[in-house]
Each structure stands twice: as C-alpha cells, then as structure tokens.
C-alpha cells in the first residue's frame, strides 16, 4: 500500500539513531558533570571538593545545552533535507555514511575548514560580532526550558527562573540585532535589505507572538515555565491547547466515572455549575486553538523560516543577511537558525502541549500504573539509586517532550515543503492587520472567559 516504505523506514531509522545519539550524549555529559564528579568527590572532606561540586552543579545545564545544540542542529539539518526529499519525491543526501547518516557531520567539517572571508569595505569587528550575537541568545534561551522539559530535575534546578517564559521571550528577541548588525557590516546591498526586512518582520511578529504567550500565562497565573508545565499534567484534556485547563473538570469527571464513584455527576455540576461556564469553556477552547496557530505563525516569522523567510529570500536577495558569510561564521548562523527552530518548538510544547505529559490521563496510562512502575523501578534500582544514571520520573516525560518537539519540527518542515513565500507587503499587512487584532481580541476574550470557569482544578 505504501509504495515508499523503504525510504520512510530509512528516514525513521536515521531519525531515531540520531536522536538516541543526541540525547544519550547529553544525558551522559550531564550525568558526568552533575552526578559522577560530585559522587566521586562526596567522600573528600575538603572545601575545594565542595566548591568543585557546586561549580559542577551550576555548570551542568550549560554544558548540557552546549553539547546538545551543535549535534541537534546537525540532526535537524539532515532530517530537514531527508524529509523535504520525502515530500518532493526525491532521495535526499544518501552518500556519507550509511544512508547519509553522517552527511551533516561532513558538511560541518567542511564549513569549519573553509576560508573565513571578510569582504572588503566591511566593518570587520561587527562582521565578526554579528553571528555571535545571533547565536548566544539561543544558548541562554534554552536554559529555562531545560528545567521545564526535564520536569525540574535536580540537575537543572539552577536554571528554573521565576520569570521563565518572559526570560525566554526577551532573550529570543535579541537575535534580530545580530541580523541587522551582520547585514549592515557586510557592505552589501542584499545583506542590508535582508537585515532591514528581518528587523521589520521580527518587530511586527513579536507582538502577536508575545501576546499569545502572555494569554497562556494569564490563564496559568504564572510566568514560571516549570509551573506551567506541571499544571498541565494529567492527560490531553488538561493541556493548554484545549482551553488552557478549562476541561480539567471534565477530566476529573471521567476519572471519577472510571473509578465508579457515585457522586460523579455532582462533581461535574460542581465544576461547570451553569451555562455560562460551559460557554466560557467553549470560548476558551476556540481561543487556545487559535492561539497555537498565532504562536506558530509568529514564531515562524520570528525565526525567519519559510513561508516567512524574506530576510534570506534566494530569489530576490541572494541569501539575504548572510550573503557575505562563509566558513565558521556562516556555520554559526546556520546553527542558530536551527536551534531557534528547536527552541520555538520547545516553547510551544511546554506552553501548549503539556510539556512532558503523556496524552493519556493517569488512570488510563499503564506507564504510571504502580504494577508496572515498581518492577521496572526494582530492575533499574542500581542505576537509579546508586549512581543516579536514570531517573524514572524524568525518563518518560523526556521521551514525550522529544516526540512532541520533533513532531512540531516535522510540521515546520512540512510547512516549508508546502507553502510559498510571502511578499513583504503581504507579510506586513498580515501581521499588523490580522494577527495583532486577532491576538488582542483573544486576549480580551480569555480575560472575560477565565472568570466564568475554573481552570486547572
């Protein structure tokens, strides 16, 4: 039936192979820095040992992110090329390594050894600084998300900020400075036009993006990403994408029904006392679904992805703001673009898709059933208790996060394969005339509807 089973199988194997390598490596490195060294130094009664331990614990999230970003970007480039090949009925890179497994590694090596050119007439200092400014926010922006997606694991508690999502948004608005700087310093008209386009676009689409996130924060009542992710626990009905927790009463009701409680109906009427609350629930669901759309659109524009990749439109501007870049500087630009895509997907996962939550509610989920978890826990007790290699409370959420995030990335690739590029005036008109009013209306609606129904009961 599926005529392309072989290619799809290859793609799946490639993806899971890379993902295993990436997250195995990140897991190993953060375990080494955050657990193994402190365990080794646990018996040393000296001040320096304690100091080293604490420094290690502070540095763990940073090291994890630093290891994660380049490998992940390599995988995402490869996955994007292979997936686009699938959508356009091609084969994609299949030469280096088995089925092109190491293609991006070869590309990265090539870029590293390429000559690093600074064009004549360019502002050399800013030309060098621009990729760094473009790239650095993606490292810092990823840090609070790390605490959210690992369920506030001990290793990553350091980066759990009270202003979590605000921090991420603020930091992720910085790269546009890097783009403008690079575009101006290149001494090239195409770069300059690309940079100006990027500035206009980023400023315009930042408003609906932030408004959609703020609406979610309004519903959750906090800016802390870990808290927002924790609130959505307990299955699909609790996720922010479905009413921002307005359906959690229904979830409780189903649970009570399954448990055979007699007062289930009474419970339901307690959560939804009148028609107003039901209407508010429906309004909230519609609003949040639209919010996800707004967020994804704004994020697409913010990270300059197709269909909003006007800053680097090949057909008009040669390659936009990175026309003059080569070698490692170009590699950094490239790296940051894909990392930004990943971060944006992670934000969407944490804010809307429940973070590391299984779509099944707990009472249906076999993985949280003690009959399953206890034997598994005993089996892994050496790894969990003695050397803290595996934390079962983090393991399954991490897998759910990975699945959700890469599903969003895959969706972005599908969008890239489908939609044509906007024109600049269409882009601006769409941003200012459609998205901003829509997100403002949703904000107001949510403000009113929130009062009529209990969220996250």
């Amino acid at each position, binding site marked *: 039936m599926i005529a392309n089973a072989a290619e799809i199988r290859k793609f799946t194997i490639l993806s899971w192979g890379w993902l295993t390598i990436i997250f195995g490596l990140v897991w190993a490195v953060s375990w080494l820095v955050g657990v193994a060294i402190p365990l080794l130094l646990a018996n040393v009664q000296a001040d320096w040992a*304690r*100091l080293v*331990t*604490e*420094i290690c*614990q*502070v540095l763990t999230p940073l090291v994890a992110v630093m290891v994660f970003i380049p490998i992940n970007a390599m995988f995402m480039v490869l996955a994007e090329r292979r997936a686009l090949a699938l959508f356009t009925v091609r084969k994609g890179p299949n030469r280096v390594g088995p089925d092109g497994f190491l293609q991006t590694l070869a590309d990265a090596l090539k870029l590293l050894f390429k000559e690093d050119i600074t064009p004549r*007439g360019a*502002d050399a200092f*800013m030309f060098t600084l621009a990729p760094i400014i473009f790239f650095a926010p993606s490292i810092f922006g990823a840090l609070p998300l790390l605490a959210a997606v690992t369920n506030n694991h001990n290793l990553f*508690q*350091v980066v759990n*900020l*009270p*202003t979590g999502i*605000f*921090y991420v*948004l*603020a*930091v992720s*608005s*910085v790269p*546009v*400075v890097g783009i*403008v*700087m690079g575009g*101006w310093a290149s*001494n090239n*008209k195409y770069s*300059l*036009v690309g940079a*100006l*386009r990027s*500035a*206009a676009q*980023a*400023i315009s689409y*930042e408003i609906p993006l932030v408004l959609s996130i703020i609406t979610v924060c309004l519903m959750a009542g906090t*800016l802390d990403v870990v808290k927002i992710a924790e609130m959505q626990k307990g299955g699909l009905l609790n996720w922010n994408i479905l009413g921002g927790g307005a359906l959690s009463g229904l979830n409780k009701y189903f649970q009570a029904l399954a448990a055979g409680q007699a007062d289930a109906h009474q419970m339901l009427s307690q959560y939804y006392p009148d028609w107003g609350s039901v209407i508010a629930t429906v309004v909230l669901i519609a609003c949040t679904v639209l919010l996800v759309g707004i967020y994804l659109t704004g994020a697409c524009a913010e990270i300059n992805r197709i269909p909003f990749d006007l800053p680097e439109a090949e057909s008009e501007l040669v390659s936009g703001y990175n026309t003059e870049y080569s070698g490692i500087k170009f590699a950094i630009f490239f790296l940051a673009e894909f990392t930004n895509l990943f971060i944006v997907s992670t934000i969407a996962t944490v804010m809307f898709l429940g973070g590391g939550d299984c779509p099944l509610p707990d009472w249906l989920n076999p993985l949280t059933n003690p009959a399953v978890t206890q034997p598994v826990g005993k089996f892994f007790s050496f790894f969990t208790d003695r050397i803290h290699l595996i934390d079962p409370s983090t393991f399954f959420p991490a897998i759910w996060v990975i699945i959700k995030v890469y599903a969003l990335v895959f969706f972005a690739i599908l969008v890239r394969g489908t939609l044509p590029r906007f024109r*600049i*005036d269409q882009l*601006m*008109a769409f941003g200012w005339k459609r998205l901003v009013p829509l997100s403002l209306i949703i904000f107001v609606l949510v403000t009113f509807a929130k009062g009529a129904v209990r969220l996250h009961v």
Partner: protein
Amino acid sequence: MEHLDLLRAWIPGRLDDFLFYLLAVMAIPMALGVLFDRTIIRSGFLLIGVFGSICGLFLVLQAQFLALAQLMIYAVGITLVVVIALMLTNPKLEKEAQPGTAHQQLGSFLVAGALFFTIYCALRSESWPLSSEAVSPDVQTIGMALTTTYALPFEFASVLLLAALVGAIMLAKAERAISDKEEPSKEAGEQNQPATLFERDTTVSSTRR
C-alpha cells in the same frame, strides 16, 4: 537552589563587585562611543551595548523583570533606531555630523563635568538609609504595585503609549499622503509603511558608499 549556599558564602560581595566593575567598564566607553563614533549606525549598536550592560547591572541588582523588559524593549526599539538611522544616513552628513563647535564642546564638557561633580558631592554627603532585606525575586511584587497602588499612573502610561503610537503613525503617515498627491502615478495601490521604508533604504544604501 539550596546547593548554591557555599558558592554564595564563598563569594559574598566579590561576584557582585566584579560584575559591577566589568559591566561599568563596558558601559562607559560604549556610552562615549555613542557620542563620538563617526558612523551613526555603529553608535546605534554601541547604544545597544550600553543597554545590554545596564541590563546586566539590573540582573546584578536582582531586578530580573526589569532587566528582561529592558532587553526586550531596547533590543527591539534600538534596532528600530538603528534602522531608521540607516535610512537617514547620508555620507555628506556623516562628515559634518561632528559634535558642535569648540565653544559648545568646551562649555558642554564643563557643564557636564560640573553636573557630575554636583551629583557626586550630593550623593556622597548623604547618609543613605540602607536596608538589609533581601529582594523578593518574584514578579508579583511589581505586578501588585502596578495594579493597586500605582494603577492610575499605569493607566496614564498606557494612554501615553497609545497617544505616542497614534502620533508616531500620524507623523510618519502625513508626509505619505502629500507625496501621494504630488506623484500619484508613482505608487498607486496600497503600498503601506514598509514599502516606503525600503524605497528609502535602497536610495540611501546606494549613496552610502
């Protein structure tokens, strides 16, 4: 966060001192560069640097929310400034855009120095009622203050912002209508703000070199 106690104990004030001086030594030359760099665009980027280091100082002062707001507003806002500076840049102007005459320079320098001297004398001779309480890292304090005690100023600020927004659009758009009247054949149809920006930009960047 408990396991950071030792680090905190080991670097009681040193980290703050070090960060303060680092950021101050970054901020001051960049602020001077904003004034004296001949390329207006570069001074715009330097201004972003100044704001970045002030944002860092806010973080040292444990004003997380403000630091992030500063970053968010200024990173975007000053980029706008830079972009507009780009569009207005004119090589001829670049050369004559030196600081004013020597009289002005000397006078302003003395005035600025005297101002600084006055402020410094004032703040040194004052005995500050320092408080030893810890700053609450939560955003809720500011939020509560803004929505209860300072609700009226907050509303005024929002009205001001709205007025500024409308005024800025009107100011930028008025010229547009006139030029439409003057040369209606040039750009018929609904070209909006960015189209003008880019039209400007191409002319400017062609004369830039």
